[in-house]
């Protein structure tokens, strides 16, 4: 399949579902249009909000008010292309490519770690004007790999030696991510894996002990040894209405001053250097301030819709891999968005994590779009009688 044709077909299909037939091509089942519109809507809102919240920052830092916005527009365009392309690629191919994709993701991590640090961390790979964030790619790669792995095991997931492979990959990836450090990526990775395992039918007696162990262990580590105790104290302070660390406090001030309808686009003050990352990790705060609870609810409904439709597509998936892929990508989005929002509203400790589809950043946007392109492809399949 030729790429330009695929893009054109995909776009045409969105605009007019029957045009493909008119052009004499073999008709294709339509992908889930709700997913498409929700994703495009979120990206559009993201572009607007990136513009609103980054103008002052960009002006001060680079002297170009539209520095971030223009890049985000380009990313949006590329993401749209990716969405279309991946929705046209039969997802079952990825099952076979899964190990290759995983190696690509791990390789990205490795490259980032071996390169000299940027701002004392190894999170990025610098390609001239571009900065790739291999963690984003790895997250997608791992979901694909895990889906493929679990699909192969069939309906019975048992504790066998092969498990060690998945656990090993997870441990390796987590280790590399922690070395970067990308703590939040590890967190979302594990949470997504949890969802995947649940969906794959893992037995409760396998899951519960590990969850209990993890909770007990982390409690002992935090309270018994005082490891990152300050972080936890900050977190607990952040749960109150006005307390918390500087970032959390500023973020909550932004939410609070937004009120129900917000201050209006561009009227926010949090972006005036009060919020450290108003266009990336804390873009939800900017939305909350400028568009109010109404805007937040809209964004949240869009995320909810995406996850629901992805899991709905999973239920109708033609194969076990498609099912797990949709579950995993939906769960990844849910976990990402929820963690980002929790940080912004002070519900969880501060970790750096972009809001999928909305935050500024090419790696995040492109990887998310690629993943949701796969979901769109899965959604093309309809099970008879359901």
């Amino acid at each position, binding site marked *: 399949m030729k790429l330009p044709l695929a893009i054109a077909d995909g776009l045409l299909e969105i605009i007019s579902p029957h045009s493909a037939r008119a052009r004499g091509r073999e008709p*294709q*089942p339509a992908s889930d249009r709700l997913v498409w519109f929700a994703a495009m809507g979120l990206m559009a809102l993201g572009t607007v909000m990136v513009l609103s919240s980054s103008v*002052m920052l960009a002006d*001060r830092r680079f002297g170009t008010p539209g520095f971030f916005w223009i890049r985000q527009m380009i990313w949006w365009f590329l993401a749209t292309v990716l969405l279309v392309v991946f929705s046209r690629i*039969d997802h079952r191919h990825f099952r076979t490519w899964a190990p290759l994709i995983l190696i690509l993701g791990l390789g990205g991590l490795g490259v980032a770690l071996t390169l000299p640090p940027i701002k004392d961390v190894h999170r990025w790979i610098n390609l001239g004007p571009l900065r790739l964030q291999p963690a984003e790619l790895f997250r997608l790669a791992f979901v694909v790999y895990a889906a493929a792995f679990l699909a192969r095991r069939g*309906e019975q997931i048992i504790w066998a030696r092969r498990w060690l492979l998945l656990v090993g990959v997870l441990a390796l990836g987590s280790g590399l991510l922690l070395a970067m450090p990308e703590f939040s990526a590890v967190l979302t990775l594990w949470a997504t894996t949890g*969802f995947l395992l*649940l*969906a794959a*039918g893992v037995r409760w007696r396998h899951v519960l002990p590990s969850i209990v162990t993890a909770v007990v262990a982390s409690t002992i580590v935090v309270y018994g040894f005082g490891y990152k105790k300050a972080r936890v104290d900050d977190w607990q302070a952040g749960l109150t*209405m*006005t307390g918390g660390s500087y970032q959390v406090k500023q973020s*909550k*001030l*932004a*939410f*609070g*001053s*937004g*009120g*129900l309808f917000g201050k209006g686009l561009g009227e926010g*003050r*949090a972006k*005036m*250097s*009060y919020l450290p990352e108003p266009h990336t990790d804390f873009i939800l705060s900017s939305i*909350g301030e400028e568009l*109010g*609870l109404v805007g*937040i*609810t809209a964004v*949240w409904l869009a*995320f*909810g819709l995406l*996850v*629901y439709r992805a*899991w709905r597509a999973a*239920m*109708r*998936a*033609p*194969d*076990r891999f498609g*099912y797990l892929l949709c*579950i995993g990508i*939906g*769960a990844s989005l*849910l*976990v990402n*968005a*929820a963690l980002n*929002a*929790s940080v912004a*509203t*002070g*519900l969880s400790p501060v970790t750096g994590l972009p809001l999928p589809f909305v935050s500024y950043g090419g790696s995040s946007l492109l990887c998310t779009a690629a993943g949701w392109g796969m979901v769109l492809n899965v959604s*093309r*399949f309809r*099970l*008879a009688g359901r």
Partner: protein
Amino acid sequence: MYRVQGRGGTSLAVAFVRRRRLLLGIGLCVWGAVWARALQLQIMGSTVLSALAEEQSDRRVCLAAPRGEIVDRQGRLLAINVAKRSFFAYPDRETPTDGLARHFASVRGQSFTGLSREWKKRHDRFTWMLRRCSATTAASVTGWQLPGVYATWEYERVYPTALTGIAGPLGFVNDSLNGAAGLEAAYDGLLRGADGVGLFVADANGHRFAVDPVAGRPPVPGRRLRLTLDARWQSILAEELDSAVTTWQARSGMALLMDPHTGAILAMVDIDPSRPPGAVVMKNRLVSDVFEPGSTFKVVTYAGALSDGVVYPGRFFDGGNGSGLFSGRPIHDDKPHGVITVAEAFAVSSNVVTGRIANRLDLGRLDFWVRRFGFGDKTGIDLPGESPGRIAIQKNSDVNVATRSIGHGISVTPMQLAVAYAAVANGGYRIRPHLVAAVESPDGTLSNVAVQGERILRPEVVCILKNFMRDVVCNGTAKTISDSLYPIAGKTGTAEKPNLSTGHYDKNKFMASFVGFYPADQPRLLGLVVLDQPEPIHYGGITAAPVLLNTIRRGTASDNVPAADMRHYCIATDSVDEPDVDWSRRLVEAVGPWLTTTEANAASDSVGAQANVSESGEPSGHPAGETGWDRMFGRCVAFVPDTTPDSVRVPGSDPQGMPLLQSVKTSGQQDLPPLVLDDGIAMTQEAQSDSSRGGNRACRLIQR
């Protein structure tokens, strides 16, 4: 390609229906928890959080209100504001105070370390960096582009009219533009206005986003003061006084011009050659410093004695050839005088005779008059730091009465003295001197300063005193300023200065003074001149009096006002502060109620003349030449009874002693209109019109 492999898929979905519900449940919980948190923050916490957000990003800056201008009566600017750049900072924890200190140390002329230490100690957020700096400094500071440093406008007080002595009444302001002295202090509340509050939004680093202060409260400019001062008269008076101070090598000089009817002060000069130029004038000596007035004070004694009826103008007293004993203590005259009338004693300023006259009053009665003229009490002028003067409590002995009657053993302010003379000039009213004619707010409304006047002298006494004072200029101690074109009436004073270290009077240090009004018959202008230690001549009539004459000459000449029209020329009044003057009441009546039968007869006998007044007003039995009435009344003129019974009181019990009053009363002409004569010539326009309008006959007494 996209065919569905039905078998496997169906079984998969069915098998995991329960897991699917679990997944959806977990997802919904997470989703809902986050949304609920947003709800909590944005609805329940909105008030608190938005207030906090505004608190951290709102910056308040004081928007200085321009201080009210001060203008003279013609609207000439005496005190204005010049807007200048000021810089302030909101240092927060991220602002490097060292950097600020390094930049500002040079322009503030302070050391870097001192400034840095000082600013580190400041925990409040607002700090002035530089206030009211020059344009070039402002440009360079703006060029530094320091974060957290903002510019605003403040005002600087400038007194553009460099009039000599103007600093005295105007005063000055301190660094915070609050009035510190003079009118600036007295009217500080009105002049100051209300500073506004500017509100702008700043980012976390203190960078200012809004260019202009938004919202907030605009400043309310201060009220504008329109003074009674006239810059032209002020400069003329200052020049004349300055030249007198130079000519007579005086230590200092003070002078004052005011409208005797309203108390509006037209000029106020305080010259002290020992004061370095540009020095801050902290006080206005005309109201805050006291001196022993000497002979100028005698007007109080004469007014009291005449009012109480213990003497009359033509009564003779023995001048004692220049000295007299009071309680065994001698009092001397400058020149020896023999037997002279009260009128002559005033004209030549005889201490002995004045002492004798005062002794016809006791000390209590004299002090009553002293206080009635306002001495020992603040005049109520609208200037801060006024002194009430001091009237020492003394034993009622002849010498104490005598010394007080000639203006010693009492300390008064020049302003009090001027107010006392104003009562003579305006027909007997004690006025409150003031410097502010109107307070103007930006919307143009005027608030007049109320003028209060209490009658302290009967019109007939006023008439006599006016003529006494005219005689001082024509024939007495102030002959130097006798000028038919400029009829001034006044009184001189040449007082020995008390030496505070020895407790005695210095025999060769004098305070020369002159208080007078012009024109003599219808005064529109009252002037006071005081010279401290003029050398080599000490006399007030020679040193101080010419200052007033020259000032009046120059002041009226440049206005092209003939002296004869002076009475219609409002030098010192304008529509704003002109009180409702009842001219008819001001007209002088004098009958001579002081004449008891015995005294009248004695007087008549002594001069061998018989005075009589007919109902028609024609004098009868009036001998030609310098005897008779001339001796009796001196140069006094006559009068007519007031229609109000109070104003003409008849002291003594015998109505036979008052021929004119008697004749008027018996003829039933109680509502005879007043008419004033002077020097035998029919008098005021007002009186004539009154009489013609009313159809009443005038009663004239012509002397000479």
